[in-house]
């Protein structure tokens, strides 16, 4: 079972829900928590533990200037403007390269080979006896999050119960996180912003064919617009977390709601049951 936690709008509480869900599940079974918000991973703040790291690399072209005759085919082929062929040399812009490998295929002289370039790391930790934490970290200045997310997901592909914390938004990093998941928890807040971005996120899960349910966080009780939207789109509100200073205090000191207020363990257990029901499994 792979469950992604996404939101559309940032700051709604994805990480809070993912961390507490994983903590709750780890009380009774082995669970893997994956931080796919690789531009600003933060799950390790809730689960401090020693970690080991592995580099994530992507292939980038290296041109042998001795063989290259500046024919220009690679520059014409590259849709991303990463290669520009001049009279006397070829300019390469690594930050524009999408690592598609096309330049190596179109070069008639076989003057291009690929070498790995580091774009980030994936760390592995075991903060609790039954909880593995895998976090992706994109290197600063690198524009492509997807290869790091993919590496973090690949590292956990064989695990039976995986919770994936997505980045905010609805673009490539979120799509990459959701790809292959069995269910998605969409965390929202009852603000116009929260609802607007929830609608976008619901569209993404629908297009990917991933069953989704809703968690309303920081509810001030005025959730009618969100509830109406969910009703109209046949989405279940699986959990509502109140707007509560005490909860915020627990969260902001890096603690877990379910560890401090153990009555929440039951609620997060129930949330997992509802996710399983979404997929049609027991």
């Amino acid at each position, binding site marked *: 079972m792979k469950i992604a936690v996404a939101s559309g709008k940032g700051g709604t509480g994805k990480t809070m829900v993912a961390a507490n869900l994983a903590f709750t599940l780890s009380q009774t079974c082995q669970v893997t928590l994956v931080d796919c918000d690789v531009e600003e991973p933060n799950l390790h703040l809730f689960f401090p533990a020693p970690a080991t790291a592995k580099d994530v690399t992507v292939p980038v072209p290296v041109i042998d200037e001795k063989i290259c005759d500046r024919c220009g085919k690679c520059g014409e082929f590259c*849709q991303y403007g*990463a290669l520009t062929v*001049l009279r006397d040399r070829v*300019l390469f812009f690594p930050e*524009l390269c999408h690592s598609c490998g096309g330049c190596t295929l179109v070069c008639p002289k076989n003057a291009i080979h690929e070498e790995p370039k580091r774009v980030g790391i994936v760390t592995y930790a075991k903060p609790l006896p039954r909880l593995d934490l895998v976090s992706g970290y994109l290197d600063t200045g690198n524009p492509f999050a997807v290869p790091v997310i993919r590496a973090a997901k690949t590292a956990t592909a064989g695990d039976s119960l995986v919770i994936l914390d997505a980045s905010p938004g609805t673009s490539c990093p979120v799509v990459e996180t959701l790809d292959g998941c069995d269910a998605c928890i969409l965390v929202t807040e009852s603000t116009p912003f929260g609802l607007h971005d929830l609608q976008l996120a619901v569209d993404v899960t629908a297009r990917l064919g991933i069953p989704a349910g809703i968690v309303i966080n920081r509810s001030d009780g005025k959730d009618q617009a969100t509830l109406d939207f969910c009703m109209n789109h046949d989405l279940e509100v699986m959990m509502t977390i109140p707007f509560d200073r005490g909860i915020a205090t627990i969260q902001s000191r890096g603690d877990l709601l379910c560890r401090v207020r153990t009555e929440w363990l039951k609620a997060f257990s129930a949330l997992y049951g509802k996710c399983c029901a979404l997929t049609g499994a027991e």
Partner: protein
Amino acid sequence: MKICITSQGATLDALAEERFGRAPFFIIVETDTGSFDAIENQFAGGSGGVGPKAAQLIMAHKVTALVSGMVGGNAREVLLAAGIQLYTYRAGGTVRDALDQFNKKTLEHVA
């Protein structure tokens, strides 16, 4: 000599465009005769890397100088490596005005 002026339209009376890579048109002018060609920039709406692609496009027309509002870092690197002179025109007027100012040598020579 041949120069390129970034433009919002296909004529000398169109407004000069301040952006280089996303300029809708490149007006290639032969300054000795005043004759010109308008080249549509097929990369103007691209998602990324449009600077180097556009630079490649105008390089192919063998221009000596480029007149534009601002040129991004990647495009600038390509244009300088290709030996193209960069001039800034940000007066908000037409291509014809930019050309006049270029001929009068009143434009800022960036590199």
